[in-house]
């Protein structure tokens, strides 16, 4: 295999694994890596093949680019979908990433659920609320069929502002916690 063929193969593989990026971003990256290989070979006297080998597998290099851009974009976003994608990518990196992803799913489900039940209360007042039985907490949210008569709904219409506030705070905290985790994680992605 000639040196030129080897470098072309590597750059083709890199281009392929950079798939999700735009064509302009991909070509810019490929151009820079090619310039690096030629400069490093010229300056160190090493062969093109040796310099290519020092870059590591094309798939791994492409993954560092994709992760960096996706996690960077997510860490500045407030969109739950973008944040969850970033958290999912983080989950592929290790146990702490998996924990962040599951906490993100739980936080969004809980916060979103609370806000949704507040919106449902005016439509289904008998089915929505917080119930106590014998002075002990029994359940909250929307229930089908409505709880039996020995259960006491304790909040009434106050359920709406309380569920809206608790849900919004949970969503805000979840967003903050994911963004913070993504920012911290970016610093540990480098390969030394």
């Amino acid at each position, binding site marked *: 295999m000639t040196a030129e063929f080897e470098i072309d193969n590597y750059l083709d593989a890199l281009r392929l694994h950079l798939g999700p990026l735009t064509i302009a971003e991909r070509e*810019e*990256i490929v*151009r*820079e*890596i*090619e*310039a*690096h290989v*030629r*400069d*490093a070979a*010229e*300056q160190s006297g090493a062969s093109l093949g040796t*310099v290519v080998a*020092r*870059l*590591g597998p094309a798939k*791994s*290099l492409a993954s*560092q*680019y994709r*992760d*960096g*851009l996706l996690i*960077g*974009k997510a860490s*500045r976003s407030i969109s739950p979908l973008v944040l969850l994608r970033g958290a999912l990518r983080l989950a592929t990196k290790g146990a702490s990433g998996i924990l962040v992803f599951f906490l993100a799913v739980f936080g969004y489900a809980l916060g979103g659920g609370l806000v949704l039940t507040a919106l449902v209360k005016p439509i289904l007042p008998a089915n929505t609320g917080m119930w106590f039985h014998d002075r002990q907490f029994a359940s909250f949210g929307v229930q089908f069929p409505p709880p039996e008569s020995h259960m006491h709904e304790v909040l009434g219409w106050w359920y709406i502002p309380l569920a809206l506030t608790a849900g919004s705070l949970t969503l805000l905290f979840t967003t903050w916690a994911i963004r913070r985790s993504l920012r911290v994680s*970016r*610093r*540990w*992605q*480098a*390969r*030394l």
Partner: protein
Amino acid sequence: MAKLRAQPSGGDQPDRWEAQLRKGAVEMAALASLWRGRLYGLEIIRFLENHSALALAEGTIYPILNRLKAEGLLTSEWVEAEAGHPRKYYSLTEAGRERLGLMAQAWVGFSRGLSRLLEPVLYPTDQDLSAAIPELKHEENPQ
């Protein structure tokens, strides 16, 4: 003043800890390498090797530079070179200079505090040694 010679007792992994410490500093180091002017990727790698203890795997710096550029901390331009192919030069933006200034202040403040904390570990006095190893006290003052 005596030198404390300690043998690692195992259990912990100092190499891994050091690698994590370095990883945390790579972003700041990449920005710092551009403080005095524009450089291209390979020059940044060589600069970090020569001016700090940061030896990066060759492919590592490019995704970091790409991300810092996406965050608006760096700008880049292709410049024709004598080598026969253009090179991509990076420069700090105003936001990059401000961020680096804040990072440098935080780093220096943090490392000064830790250096004070670690001074007795690196340069222990006899008093430090006898406090760390109680058996020495008994040997020096047998009852």
